[in-house]
């Protein structure tokens, strides 16, 4: 089960966040900061799956933007990895060559 879906840039600013389980709003920023810290500290040739607390993070970097998905154990990590890529391709088609600015400015559209 996917717990959350985040788009965060390298400086730690959240561009898009979608939570599928209730998380306190105060905890959300903390969670996002920690998650992005974990992802940033990984180098290029390290595995894209991190174990964080009691669930796993699958992340993928596209230029300066990180797409991070939090999943629980029953989910197939590689399928989620592909899902991330699929999502980015869809955005690409929609915005024709999407960039981070597009994402920041069209949050509501991306949500739906």
């Amino acid at each position: 089960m996917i717990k959350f879906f985040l788009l965060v840039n390298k400086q730690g600013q959240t561009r898009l966040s979608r939570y599928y389980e209730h998380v306190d709003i105060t905890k959300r920023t903390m969670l996002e900061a920690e998650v992005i810290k974990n992802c940033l500290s990984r180098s290029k040739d390290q595995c894209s799956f991190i174990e964080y607390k009691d669930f796993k993070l699958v992340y993928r970097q596209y230029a300066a933007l990180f797409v991070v998905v939090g999943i629980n154990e029953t989910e197939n990590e590689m399928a989620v990895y592909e899902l991330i890529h699929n999502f980015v391709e869809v955005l690409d088609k929609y915005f024709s060559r999407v960039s981070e600015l597009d994402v920041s400015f069209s949050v509501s559209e991306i949500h739906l």
Partner: protein
Amino acid sequence: MPAPIRLRELIRTIRTARTQAEEREMIQKECAAIRSSFREEDNTYRCRNVAKLLYMHMLGYPAHFGQLECLKLIASQKFTDKRIGYLGAMLLLDERQDVHLLMTNCIKNDLNHSTQYVQGLALCTLGCMGSSEMCRDLAGEVEKLLKTSNSYLRKKAALCAVHVIRKVPELMEMFLPATKNLLNEKNHGVLHTSVVLLTEMCERSPDMLAHFRKVRKLSSSQLVPQLVRILKNLIMSGYSPEHDVSGISDPFLQVRILRLLRILGRNDDDSSEAMNDILAQVATNTETSKNVGNAILYETVLTIMDIKSESGLRVLAINILGRFLLNNDKNIRYVALTSLLKTVQTDHNAVQRHRSTIVDCLKDLDVSIKRRAMELSFALVNGNNVRGMMKELLYFLDSCEPEFKADCASGIFLAAEKYAPSKRWHIDTIMRVLTTAGSYVRDDAVPNLIQLITNSVEMHAYTVQRLYKAILGDYSQQPLVQVASWCIGEYGDLLVSGQCEEEEPIQVTEDEVLDILESVLISNMSASVTRGYALTAIMKLSTRFTCTVNRIKKVVSIYGSSIDVELQQRAVEYNALFKKYDHMRPALLERMPVMEKVTTNGPTEIVQTNGETEPAVLETKPPPSGLQPTSQANDLLDLLGGSDITPVIPTAPTSKPASAGGELLDLLGDLNLTGSPVSAPAPQIAQPPFLLDGLQSQPLFNDIATGIPSITAYNKNGLKIDFTFERSNTNPSITVITIQASNSTELDMTDFVFQAAVPKTFQLQLLSPSSSVIPAFNSGTITQVIKVLNPQKQQLRMRIKLTYNHKGSAMQDLAEVNNFPPQSWQ
């Protein structure tokens, strides 16, 4: 009131903010503007304001005042309003807010709207945050939409149904008829969501699972063949542009179907048989050059492992995993290691083949991979490869990150204990672990090691010599120092006499040994526990060493005024030993007996404590609070000579002064008499509830079993102990023994304590005695009740230990009772 700015403007302004404070200021200003605009009930700009509010919510600022506005937006007729309204509802509202119930009516109307997009919006929102009441109300509508022909709506309705089922599991049956036709769709979207729906149903309810599995006679719509057919089409069909992802058509659907097959095939032979072919086909035909193919293969492997597949298929799966391991991509290797970990229990041999690759993964740079490789390596250690594996693991321990060291150390200990080829190797390994990762070793490993060392009698000299050398240089690693000081205390004489066959003996004088122990005591780096160990060790050396007794006395008396209460108590007691009880000192500080090995069960095992022996009659001693805080809870052990004997827990405090956690280490081993039940939480001696219920509550033993003869269990020095038996009618495995102790000498016996121990297959409960004084001349007796649980109807045996004061001196005796009549246990 000027028109509120657009969302884009807001975003732009926020982006120009340089600092967090600036950003906060801008946002607050904007919030104020939004709030006043809301108050004015301005319809035209409401949607814009809510959009901005959502953005600010995403950044982490409170936005709850917009909830009601969202509702108003939903109720409006414009599509854009509705869209933002529903989005806001999804993001801002959830079950905990009461406001969400107001939405129910809106959603209901929208579910019947003419435009499919509005219906879709409503379904999305319901599926995202519907509470159980909302779901109950609207489930009927959702079900209706599940049957429409509009595929756009159908797939959304299916996902909504998933959410409804999660919230209100009772409604599952309602969706059952609709699911029959779902899989006949062509549209992949609908297929995908219906597979999700079916998966959810099967996971939630085993009845559903059975329903889906069973053969339906008439129709050809059995679930498993249907799924197999769909999967086949996906693989066989040519290139279809709308579903293609890097050359494979609709991998997401394939993965979903595989997962559903896994759930259907688990523990079910028929379904598994039907799937075997297709799984083999998928496994062989999928392209592995891209990640997509690997994802599908991974899912296939998981499925094969879970269902009752034939062995050829399993071998295929493990080979695929082996291939993954050799791949360069980290992700794939990680995934392979994870799955191998899951399968190593069942297919041990197959995984062994890949052992060398797994061991190589230990050297990988990636943290996640290292962790998985470490766990897998521990699972693969067996008698044949233990030496090689241990070498690799020790090297890994040297170089790994601190967060691994504790786990690795515990794992190494466990593996070494199970598979050690020789005692010397075992001790060497332990020493190596202690010196490399000494500070990360778990606290309860220390007692284990100590027990291990005492067990290998011939290695004592070698061990103590190595330990001495290890702490000579560096005594900052606490567990190492603890073990070392214990050993030096025990075997100091071997160290000084320089006899060691295995290694070059070193010349050590008594003073040097005392020096090192004293420096441990003084050092700031030593924990309180370590200091306790060192002090006790010094004390023990007073009997082993000959020329430095005065020095030891001095050290001990210094610590009699130490600030640390534990140390102070020990020092005072030892001082008392020197002064008042000097004649007992040698007996007390004797060598520890060889301890029976306790089966280890992971890091939470219970092991003995260390310390010197104390007879119960020393009433001047305050009850020691446990020689190690960590083993406080672990004092109950079954170590009695050669056989497995369980100690006894008397339920009421006896007259012993050493109550509350006082341990009694004596020549029997570790018979712990815990005065108060509070200090006896040892898990393995927990009485099963029925024993307590059955025995304590009411007297079920009115019937004295006819003809069970009573026996004289012990008769020596004027003390006679008789056993009388009763069997319970209701529970034939319980025997109640009443002991009577009588004294035929001319002086009373005071402070009489009776202890008993039985073999492991029995359980024993001692109730409190009638008194602790046996009057002389057989003028009275002490009675005590023992209850024995004997579920396996084995021959009853018992070892008893008696301590009492007689004629001014303390007496104690051990005896074995073997003459139980057969009727008492059969």
